């Protein structure tokens, strides 16, 4: 039996992930165990929900376990650019009506912004989504992870799924971020160190004053990219910022989890951000990371601000501050995509959209934008793109002959101004 007192520091020797998993299977489980756990929320997006519906039908299921804790989100190819996608969107709309589950339709935003923004996650939750960046909500002290469509269909039917409890790598991040350097630069740096499969089967725990200093949005950028090291979860502690952020989004009560002082870690990695500089992930892998100094001046044809990694309000704030008094270079298309409708509204109210569009940016519908290459800005052969997204795989933006570079919002905007990779520290004061 799991005792809720154990969520706080205890003598059991459990880390945060083991505590969340234990709580959801009502007995103590540790790394390496396999368990069937209750889940709090399950969802799919427009690229994966079609197969969730097919699996649901093949299972001969009648009802989802809890309609208000299941969602389908039309974000990847939205508004639909082709008839085939329109048919999938229609099928998803009909299914959500039939089951009474939550639908977020065209223009609402990216799944990984909407799930936390709409109050579907609180600390201590266990969430599955049919999208690999579901790990984003670890920033809210939850265990959330991406799975295949059959898995998510099973979770929607049963309200539970099986897990192998992962080992956990602890990242202790100390120091203060210098001006012009952001959480995106830190996570790119860490991925470069650990490599693309450095955390396969494992979870990542991020602690330390550098993490505590970050806003929830900036923490989400880090948690979002745990999968780029192969990790199942990327989890952080809950603090006053977490509670303040959740206020007004949900009135669910929650029990945050804390790792025990004698918890087990497969590895502990310490970093100091005090001397960290801007980083770029070079084509075609996310772990191909270098300091910006190595590639300054490389010509860029397109710049993208947005996605579930960096399409949030403070990213738009940074972008507007950097571009103020400058123009987008005529040789660059600068595409901006707020991660959700409410971020778009907020960014309009605060004048960020005005500033960016006046400077020459092209605004597209809240959602995934050009991230996955189905619409909204497919690059041409041989072109260079700089983006705030989380993946730069060959072909990712819809053209295998283009070259995608990843950086922070400030780096992307500075590069849009100069039409080449540019140091954001020259633009922030």
């Amino acid at each position, binding site marked *: 039996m799991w005792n809720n007192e154990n969520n706080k520091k205890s003598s059991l020797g459990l880390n945060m992930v083991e505590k969340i998993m234990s709580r959801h299977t009502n007995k103590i489980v540790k790394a390496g165990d396999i*368990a069937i756990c209750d889940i709090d929320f399950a969802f799919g997006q427009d690229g*994966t929900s079609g197969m969730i519906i097919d699996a649901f039908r093949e*299972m001969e299921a009648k009802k989802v376990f809890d309609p208000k804790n299941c969602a389908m989100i039309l974000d990847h190819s939205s508004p639909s650019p082709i008839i*085939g996608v329109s048919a999938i969107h229609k099928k998803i709309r009909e299914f959500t009506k039939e089951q009474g589950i939550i639908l977020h339709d065209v223009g609402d935003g990216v799944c990984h912004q909407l799930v936390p923004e709409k109050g579907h996650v609180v600390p201590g939750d266990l969430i599955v989504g049919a999208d690999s960046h579901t790990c984003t909500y670890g920033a809210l002290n939850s265990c959330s992870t991406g799975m295949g469509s059959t898995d998510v269909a099973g979770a929607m039917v049963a309200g539970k799924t099986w897990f192998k409890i992962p080992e956990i790598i602890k990242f202790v991040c100390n120091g203060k971020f210098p001006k012009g350097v952001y959480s995106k630069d830190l996570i790119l740096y860490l991925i470069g160190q650990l490599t693309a499969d450095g955390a396969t089967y494992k979870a990542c725990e991020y602690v330390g004053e550098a993490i505590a200093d970050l806003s929830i949005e900036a923490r989400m950028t880090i948690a979002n990219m745990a999968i780029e090291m*192969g990790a199942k979860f990327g989890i952080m502690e809950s603090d006053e910022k977490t509670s303040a952020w959740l206020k007004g989004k949900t009135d669910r009560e929650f029990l945050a989890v804390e790792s025990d002082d004698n918890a087990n870690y497969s590895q502990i990695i310490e970093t100091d951000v005090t001397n960290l500089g801007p980083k770029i992930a070079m084509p075609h892998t996310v772990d191909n990371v270098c300091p910006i100094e190595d590639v300054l001046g490389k010509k860029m044809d397109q710049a993208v601000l947005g996605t579930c990694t960096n399409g949030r309000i403070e990213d738009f704030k940074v972008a507007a501050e950097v571009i103020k008094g400058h123009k987008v270079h005529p040789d660059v298309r600068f595409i901006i995509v707020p991660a959700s409708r409410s971020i778009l509204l907020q960014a309009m109210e605060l004048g960020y959209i005005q500033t960016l569009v006046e400077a020459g940016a092209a605004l597209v519908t809240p959602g995934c934008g050009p991230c996955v290459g189905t619409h909204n800005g497919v690059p041409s052969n041989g072109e260079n793109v700089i983006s705030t997204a989380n993946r730069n795989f060959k072909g990712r933006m819809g053209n295998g002959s283009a070259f995608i570079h990843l950086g922070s919002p400030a780096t992307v905007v500075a590069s849009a101004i100069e039409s080449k990779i540019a140091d954001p520290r020259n633009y922030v004061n």
Partner: protein
Amino acid sequence: MILKGKTHRFKTPAGTDHDINTDYIISGRYKFQCEDNNELATHVMEDLDPNFYANIEKGDFIVAGKNFGCGSSREQAPIAIIYAGISAVIAKSFARIFFRNGFNKGLPLIECDTDRIDPADKLEIDLERGVINNLTKKEEIKFSAIPPLMLTLLNDGGMIEHFKKNKGFNIDG
């Protein structure tokens, strides 16, 4: 469950058998075009070995290095392998979403040191006991036995069949 068959190995353009991604297993160009799984299976691994499908005998194994199945979460990858007649994949490690998809679709995935397994070796695998008997080399390789939960999924033919039969999970966890 005892499985018997011969092995197949592949090399990626990088010259290794690590990181065989889901695009190599089944190219993205078929994933939206092919509704028929038997047809999909004929394209399995074709970018690494165009003759592979023709050389499979039912029950054969794929053997690889680290991080097999990395990349996208497409479930067509394990499906194409299963419909091609492969009865298990043996690798040093698997990417985690592929690992789940494999068991959920009814494909046993075995993690062990694969250095001593050559192409066309004849193997006999005991999933419950966690032993590979290399009949060609007359030696045994041990692997961690497949946990009961996943064996149940495999024995039922994957998660969909398991759910159909039990109206949900019917496994102690």
